[in-house]
């Protein structure tokens, strides 16, 4: 993927995978490898480990970047990141002179690595020294069922909101209906989480997951800036909402004003027919 060298970090205490351990591991690796720039993935781990490492080493950081670049003249590392619930982008420059840390969002639509088999980069293995005792221990993990389609990998995502009202309607109209027919992943708004329609880990938005599918079907959600921060990168947004004034229609390419309980069954039925014909 373009790396000149790969360093494998090895320590028995890394297995547990808690952020404490990763902060220690990266601190030691940075001391040994002396990089100018450290880039972490902006996932749960990187989101915590990045700022912690920056504080521990007293170095600058920019997080949640959609893009990073080097400024040739100043030597600054420039990170572009959304702020104000995605209503603006800020360009933040980290001056040279010490390690600089950036966390980078996963690029939209680049879920897979090129299949070509590149020449393997030379690698080193760092055996990390210090024993490590973390402050937290995992007692229990809730993970998605095996084989479940990841929201981030789906080409079509159906997002539901408070308007879907009940877990039963969600199951019958969406999970067993529209999403199943489309082979779509499902998620939704904080309104849907608050109503107990979907679990918290399926929330999409500023403080949820960020998806950029080809098609995002928004059903019974109003289109708050905080929600759009997680799905505004979709190529096409389709909205079904009873309120013609709902902000979601300002982001959508196709819209239906109507009750999802009336619109979705006929939509699903017709789609099933079309997809069977086109198959």
């Amino acid at each position, binding site marked *: 993927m373009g790396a000149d060298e790969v360093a494998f970090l090895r320590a028995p205490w890394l297995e547990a995978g808690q952020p404490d351990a990763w902060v220690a591991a990266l601190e030691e690796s940075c001391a040994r490898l002396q990089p100018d720039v450290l880039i972490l993935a902006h996932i749960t781990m990187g989101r915590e480990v990045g700022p912690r490492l920056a504080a521990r080493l007293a170095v600058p950081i920019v997080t949640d970047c959609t893009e990073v670049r080097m400024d040739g003249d100043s030597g600054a590392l420039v990170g572009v990141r959304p702020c104000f619930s995605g209503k603006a982008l800020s*360009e933040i420059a980290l001056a040279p002179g010490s390690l600089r840390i950036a966390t980078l969002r996963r690029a939209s639509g680049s879920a897979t690595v090129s299949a070509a088999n590149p020449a393997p980069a030379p690698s080193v293995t760092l055996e990390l020294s210090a024993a490590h005792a973390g402050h937290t221990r995992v*007692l229990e*993990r809730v993970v998605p069922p095996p084989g479940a389609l990841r929201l981030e990998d789906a*080409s079509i995502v159906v997002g539901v909101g408070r308007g879907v009202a009940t877990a039963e309607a969600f199951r019958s109209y969406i999970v067993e209906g529209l999403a199943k027919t489309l082979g779509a992943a499902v998620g939704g708004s904080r309104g849907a989480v608050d109503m107990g329609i979907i679990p918290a880990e399926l929330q999409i938005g*500023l403080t949820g997951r960020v998806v950029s599918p080809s098609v995002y079907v928004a059903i019974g959600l109003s289109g708050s800036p905080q929600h759009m921060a997680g799905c505004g990168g979709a190529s096409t947004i389709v909205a079904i909402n009873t309120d013609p004034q709902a902000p979601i229609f300002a982001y959508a390419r196709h819209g239906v004003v109507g009750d999802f309980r009336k619109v979705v069954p006929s939509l699903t039925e017709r789609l099933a027919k*079309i997809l069977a014909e086109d198959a």
Partner: protein
Amino acid sequence: MHVVVCIKQVPDPQAPAGSFYVDEATNEPRWSPPAQDQISTFDLHAIEAAAQLRQAHGGRVTVVSLGDAEVEVGLRRALAGGCDAALRLDGPAGSSADRSETARWLAAAIARLAPVDLVLCGRLAADWDMGHVPAMLGELLGMAVVTPVVGLEYDGACFRARRLTDEGQEVLEVDLPAVLAVSNELNEPGYPTMRAVLQAQKVPVTTWTARDLGLDEPADRAAARLLRLLPRDLTRECEFIEADTPEDAGLLLADCLRAQGLLAAGAKGG
């Protein structure tokens, strides 16, 4: 148990998207009509969590905010919401690019408030959306960090926190002292009673300066700075499906999706 809650005031994050704009001359965010300052959403959940812990286990809660006299409005709201003491740190409320100063001030204050068992923050401030402070505080204070916290259990001895991970959740046993960054799923903050609001007016707000905290002047050249703030507009023209009944609209929408080539599977991204 001594709990410290760190809060920040931000312009109403739920102000309509259309009221937001960027002053390009100064690179500053603006709202027209102006957005009211209020305690950042997740910080309200942190206050509520602290109040609930105190109710169940006793102890005291200190609320802290960094900034000028205006942050006292938020501090009094926190007192009404169940905090016992309020502390204002007379320093620069967060810059647009760098949270290390904020963390340095808060860490110095928390060290001075010792012993502290628990520091509660919101998972991110609803303005620049960074969420750096809790993680940085944990490092500067040498405390455990858990983020974002959606559940808490404490039986007087063992502390457990439930947090969101990328695709699921995790329950952790947490050594105290700890910094917890709280998410909205944790609780539902109520509105304080009129009595509590009036009582909060009588509690003195303590102010500590850089000198009180033994903080030296910050380095004059910030290592991270804002180059540009650019408005981002994701809105577009919507084509509404017109039909006599919503059922018909559903059929037409299906036809439209096919005609637009949006049903071709596997065409992720673009």
